[in-house]
C-alpha cells in the first residue's frame, strides 16, 4: 500500500502487541525494507505511549518529535453493527469503515511525502492538546501486566491471572489488556462472550476512539 511513498524519508514501524510471538508470526507480511515489524510481548508501547487498543498509531517526524500523538490508526467504531445472524458486519457499516480507513491512509501518504507541510501533521500546540492523559491506576496496571506476562512465561499461570484481573480493574478502558488476557475463540481471536459482553456494555463510550482529522467525522 505504501510502496509509492516508502523511501529513504519514511518508514513504517509496525508493532505486534502479542504476548505469544508464535500467535503473531503467521500474520507477519513478507519482508519489505520499508516496513519494520516488531513484537512487543509486554505491551511496553501501551505504557510508553498510553495505548489502549489496536490499531493505534503515532506519527513521529525526522527529529523524533511527535506530530500526531496516539490515536486510532484508521479503524472506525462499527463493532456494535456486527450482524450476528449473518456472521459479519452490515455492508453499510463496512463501507463507512472503508472510507475512514482510506481517508486515514491517504493522510499518512500525504505526510510521508510532504512532511511538516502536510495539513495532517499537527503543530506542537495541537499535538500536545491531543496527548491522552495517563492516570496512576493506568500506570499501575501496566507494571502489573508486565509482571504477569513474565510469570505466565515462567509457568506461574495462577499468579499471572490474578495480576491480569487487577490490571483490568485498574485500567478498564484498555482493550489491549482485556483482549490479551481474555478467552480466545478458535483461530486465536479474543471475541468470545466475555468480549462481546464488555463491548455491549460500552454505552456511550467508543471501542475505537474517533480521531480529529479532516474527512473523518
Amino acid at each position, binding site marked *: 500500500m505504501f510502496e509509492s511513498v516508502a523511501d529513504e524519508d519514511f518508514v513504517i514501524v509496525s508493532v505486534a502487541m502479542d504476548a505469544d510471538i508464535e500467535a*503473531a508470526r503467521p500474520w507477519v507480511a513478507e519482508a519489505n525494507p520499508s516496513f519494520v515489524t516488531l513484537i512487543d510481548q509486554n505491551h511496553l508501547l501501551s505504557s510508553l505511549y498510553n495505548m489502549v487498543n489496536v490499531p493505534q498509531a503515532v506519527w513521529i517526524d525526522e527529529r523524533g518529535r*511527535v506530530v500526531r500523538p496516539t490515536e486510532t490508526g484508521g479503524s472506525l467504531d462499527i463493532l456494535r453493527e456486527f450482524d450476528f445472524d449473518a456472521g459479519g458486519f452490515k455492508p453499510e457499516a463496512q463501507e463507512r469503515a472503508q472510507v475512514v480507513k482510506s481517508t486515514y491512509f491517504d493522510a499518512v501518504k500525504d505526510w510521508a511525502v510532504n512532511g511538516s507541510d502536510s495539513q495532517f501533521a499537527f503543530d506542537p500546540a495541537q499535538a500536545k492538546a491531543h496527548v491522552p*492523559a495517563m492516570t496512576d491506576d493506568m500506570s499501575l496496571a501496566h507494571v502489573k501486566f508486565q*509482571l504477569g506476562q513474565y510469570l505466565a512465561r515462567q509457568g506461574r499461570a495462577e499468579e499471572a491471572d490474578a495480576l491480569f484481573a487487577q490490571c483490568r480493574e485498574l485500567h478498564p478502558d484498555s482493550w489491549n489488556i482485556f483482549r490479551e488476557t481474555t478467552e*480466545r475463540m478458535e483461530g486465536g481471536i479474543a471475541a468470545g462472550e466475555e468480549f462481546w459482553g464488555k463491548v455491549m456494555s460500552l454505552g456511550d463510550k467508543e471501542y475505537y476512539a474517533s480521531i480529529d482529522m479532516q474527512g473523518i467525522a
Partner: protein
Amino acid sequence: MVTVLTETGETRVSGEAGEALWLSRDEAGSATGWLMKPEGFCKDDVCVPTPAGKEGDYIDGDKVNVSAFWTLMGKPAATSEQGDVWCLSEGAQMRNDALLSLQAPDFTLPDFDGKLHSLSDFRRKRVLLITWASW
C-alpha cells in the same frame, strides 16, 4: 535469587525474596540504573534524599531498600506473591510529561527473527508507528 524487571530488561540479583527489595548498592545500580550516593538515591542528575530519621528503612550497611525508594519516588512497582520477582516502572506523571514534551519515547524491541531495533535507529526519517495484534 531475585529477578528485577524494568522496561529495558530483566536482571537476576542475589537479594532475598521478601516484602521489600533489598539489594546491594552494586546490584541496585545494575538492576535499576539508580545509584546510592551520599546525596541520596540518584540517577543522572536526579537525587532523592534518604528521609531524615528513617535512614534504617532505606539503607542497611551495603544494602539499599530499592522498593522503598521506588515508593518514595511515587513510581509504580509490582511483586510476585513470594517477592522473588519485582517489576519496577515509571509513574503516570513521568509518562505524561514525556508525551507532552512531544519527544517520542524511545524503545527497543525485537523483530520476528530476534534482531533488536530501536525507534531512535530511524531518526532522520518520518516514522508511522502503528500497532496490531493477532487477537
